[in-house]
């Protein structure tokens, strides 16, 4: 979690702090899903409480952005699932929508490097702007 009491945080732009915070909450959610699945595969009774709580935190962090970017219909559905999901499928559906948005805004996009045939000289010249 971002430490607001740390001197290192002072002077860091709010946008960067927010990005770290979102990534942290996304990471926590995935960890919770992993724990839930572990229990489930061992056929131990488990509930969605932690997973749902973490999804809700992630939603609260991204609420304004999602409201701005999603259509009214999709946003209502995501909001509904994040706040009062009844099944694991609903949780995952909401998370996938959020995750796709994070990819679109390039927060979690890591495959941005152009893949091309290096042995084709003209293709490289074109891609590198020559």
């Amino acid at each position, binding site marked *: 979690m971002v430490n607001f009491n740390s001197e290192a945080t002072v002077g860091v732009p709010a946008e960067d702090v927010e990005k770290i915070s979102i990534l942290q909450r996304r990471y926590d959610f995935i960890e919770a899903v992993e724990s839930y699945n572990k229990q489930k595969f061992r056929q131990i009774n488990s509930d969605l409480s932690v997973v749902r709580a973490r999804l809700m935190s992630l939603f609260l962090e991204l609420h304004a952005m999602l409201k701005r970017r999603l259509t009214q219909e999709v946003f209502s559905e995501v909001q509904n699932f994040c706040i009062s999901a009844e099944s694991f499928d609903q949780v995952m559906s909401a998370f996938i929508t959020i995750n796709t948005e994070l990819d679109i805004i390039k927060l979690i996009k890591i495959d941005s490097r152009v893949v091309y045939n290096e*042995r*084709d000289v003209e293709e490289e010249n074109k891609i590198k702007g020559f």
Partner: protein
Amino acid sequence: MGAKDLLYNNGLPFNGDLAENLDRLIDRVNSGKASVLIIEGGVGEGKTTIAVEVLDYINSKYNLPPIDLIDRPQLAMGGAEFMQKLRVCHEKKLPVVAYDEAGDFSRRGSLTQFNSMLNRTFETFRAFRILVVIILPNFNVLDQNLFDNKIPRLMISLKSRGSSYGSYGGYSLYRMALLRSYMQKMRIKNYAYSLVRPNFRGHFKNLPINRCRDLDQISTSNKLAILAKSEVKVEGLLTYPELAAKLLKSISWVRAKVSELKLKENRIIRQVKYFGPETLGRLSDHLEVMSENPKPKRNGPPKSIMKDLV
């Protein structure tokens, strides 16, 4: 060695991705964009050999026979021949011309001349749709302006030639720019090649014996011409521009006076006339006589006008 031993499995004297990249260069030239292929390498690495093989390949793409090494309309040895061959290629509709520096760079100021000639060439001949192959020892001598205009598209760098084959690496313009930037920073310029990987590598074989012989003959005759030019420098012989520079007169003035005084040249090498120091002395004396007895200046209007007036 049989004809088959001189070809790789792809039916060409070179392997690797060179053929595909040459095809892309041909497409580029056909779309009206000026393009240059650079072939660089040290002495004896096979620059002219691979250049002939590349020219043959490009000719074959246009259903033309291999390049003529006797009249060599597509192979210019030295800057003086280059523009002439380019014109010939345009007239005969040949798709490619090669410029072999052939000792051009051993002269002082030759690099500036060479670069200005290339810049002029690409400003003038772009529409001709002719691919230009430049053969030189190190591509770093080329003007930055050429690279800024994105004209050199592919470079074939040669190294470690064996007895029956040579090795090459192909570099894109992007990688050439990287190499140049490293070369500017480094004291040992060749070290830059260890920092930039080529786009593709390959080998090339020797030409058939008869073509090898023709190529050797071209190379030898060109070197003899260079030797002859060096000899005239040692003997102190002068060309028209050199005489003009020494007399502080124009070249046309020197030409006119040499003809007027019926002075004979000492030697003619490749259509260039060389004069001895005595010619310089005669012209200098003539200049002195002229300055002592200047021509009287004509006053008034020309006679023809006077006649009309009368």
